């Protein structure tokens, strides 16, 4: 993008890309604000995306920007409906890269059933960086939504929607130039959530497993619900490649970030049906029952290890630094 800082040429260039890929009647009006039909109760959220590299195995920053916001809406029990997106482009972004990213956003939005109804672009000085903010609105169904991290009850069963660590491992591999076939798991999760709700699964708590990893999320469930949660190391799905990479770098899949995985605590009697719901989703094929709420010290998360021992898991401390020997 040779033509610089927000002039007419840039505006035309960008609007032609956006208009072309985010084609919908609301955006097409090009008004100052999108006017859309609503619901009695809506959920709103926003998130910014600054990942490098922009493209990685299994996704790109555009796909991430849609999935991240869609998943936040889905975890609150809402059906994701509308997104806005703000782009900040540093001078030097390649036109073709921008086009690929916008195309990917449009595809992911279609997959997730959301409409991108408003947008903004700024061009600033820099070295070719690209950042995206998305905000989202979702419709909440009638009635109270009783899902909360503080709602785990005795004997509840914990389910995970698939393998851990793939996104984190894909990004690290790309940054470090490590060749492997690890793909980011970046995916919208609202489908499996609506399946759970449709099947009237008694979901007590659910959360997408992003930064901080599974252990951080479940530790929060345990603390907020004042229960003891135990998970089984040998039941937690992790691909051999991710496990291998973690071994080399001294990372723990339990603390690695994901972009297309969720964890839920459900009533024990509903566990098998819940598992079937997750497995029915194209993004939940590797779903597994990984643990349960057990009698024990309030606010603790225990891991029953492959070796047969038991240890406590805490939330993530620091940045998950690689070990050195």
């Amino acid at each position, binding site marked *: 993008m040779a033509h610089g800082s927000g002039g007419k040429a840039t505006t035309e260039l960008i609007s032609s890309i956006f208009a072309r890929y985010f084609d919908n009647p609301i955006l097409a009006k090009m008004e100052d604000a999108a006017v859309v039909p609503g619901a009695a109760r809506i959920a709103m959220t926003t998130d910014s995306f600054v990942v490098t590299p922009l493209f990685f195995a299994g996704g790109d920053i555009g796909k991430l920007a849609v999935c991240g916001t869609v998943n936040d809406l889905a975890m609150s029990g809402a059906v994701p409906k509308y997104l806005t997106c703000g782009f900040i482009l540093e001078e030097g972004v390649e036109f073709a890269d921008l086009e690929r990213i916008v195309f990917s956003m449009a595809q992911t939005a279609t997959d997730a059933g959301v409409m991108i109804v408003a947008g903004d672009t700024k061009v600033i000085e820099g070295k070719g960086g690209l950042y995206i903010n998305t905000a989202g609105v979702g419709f909440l169904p009638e009635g109270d939504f009783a899902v909360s991290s503080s709602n785990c009850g005795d004997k509840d069963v914990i389910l995970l929607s698939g393998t851990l660590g793939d996104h984190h491992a894909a990004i690290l591999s790309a940054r*470090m130039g490590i060749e492997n076939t690890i793909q980011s798991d970046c995916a919208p999760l609202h489908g499996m959530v609506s399946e759970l709700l449709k099947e009237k699964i008694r979901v007590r708590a659910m959360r997408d497993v992003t930064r901080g990893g599974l252990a951080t999320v479940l530790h929060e469930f345990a603390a907020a619900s004042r229960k003891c949660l135990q998970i089984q190391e040998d039941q937690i799905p992790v691909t051999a490649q991710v496990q291998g990479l973690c071994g080399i*770098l*001294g990372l*723990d899949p339990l603390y690695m970030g994901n972009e297309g995985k969720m964890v839920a605590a459900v009533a024990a009697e509903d566990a098998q049906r819940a598992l079937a719901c997750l497995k029915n989703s194209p993004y939940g094929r590797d779903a597994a029952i990984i643990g349960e709420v057990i009698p024990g010290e309030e606010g603790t998360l225990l*891991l*029953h*290890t*492959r*070796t*047969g*021992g*038991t*240890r*406590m898991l*805490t939330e993530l*401390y*620091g*940045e998950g*630094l*690689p*070990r*050195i*020997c």
Partner: protein
Amino acid sequence: MKDYRAFLKEYDGPPVRIMEVCGTHTASIAHSGIVSLISSKIQLISGPGCPVCVTVTEYIDRLIELSLTPDTVVVTFGDMIRVTGSRQSLQDVRSEGGQVRMVYSPLDMIALAEAEPAKTFVFAAIGFETTAAVYAALIDEIARAGITNARLLTSLKTMPLVIEWVCSMQGGIDGFLAPGHVSVITGSDLFVPLAEKYRIPFAVAGFEGEQILIALYALVKMILHGDSRVMNLYPSAVTAGGNQTAQHMINTYFEPCDAAWRGMGIIPDSGMILRPEYLHYDAGSRDLYSDHSHHPGCRCAKVITGAQKPAQCPLFGTLCTPDKPQGACMVSTEGSCYSYFVNRRNA
């Protein structure tokens, strides 16, 4: 198969104290929940095998000084960034313009140096025999590629002399879980003179939970029988004589030197430094000996030598946590305090 598990769990003989020397063992013991599988009469003590934890403050201060020098970039593993020197850490000086890059492998520095030839890149080269072999390979590559803007600031240490130091302190260690990674390079025979001199058994072990349990079983049995051998229970990776090629590489580029260990002082000949003919790759590593504990209450030194458990430190879990570490043992993911804190290992 289950016999050794039952033995370890039900052991009710005289109390035994076993030191795991290697930081990776410390981490794996915590990860596998080993303590929940053995009798409370078998006490495990974390030794001086975490390279970050035994680095003295003057070395960190020197790194900080380099990071603030114009056109100089410090390249390091992640753990080092948060360790405090006499006043600050590399992380602290980053916000003041200190140039610090984090990498996952020393060899990553080559690409950095090639990309910015006007800057000098200094690798924070800490570690034991295992990592020394990688630094030797790095120097070898730098020399071959004719790179002139890459240096090492070394604080390299060797295992046998510090283990001897622990033995000579008579801290009541009955057996050693010998460091697996180091042994891959040095060979298990390295520990034979120590075993004979101090009549203490050693077990060289791998890093899986099961491998550690088997090694502990072997050690307790040897202790009970007064047997002071070196048993190699990691034969898939470790030989008696070690990796000759790696040893040759290390000896080509490095020679022994006195080394300062955090909290232990200077142990003669327990370190390695670049040989005189390669000093142009050195960023001023000689004579970095002084060590000022960041906090007067810090017990890192006693924790590293097994004289105290982490929880016996007055700062543990209160003033000193992984979020706000006072001592190096709480910074490194292989540090005993970090490991005890995060995994709530019985401290």
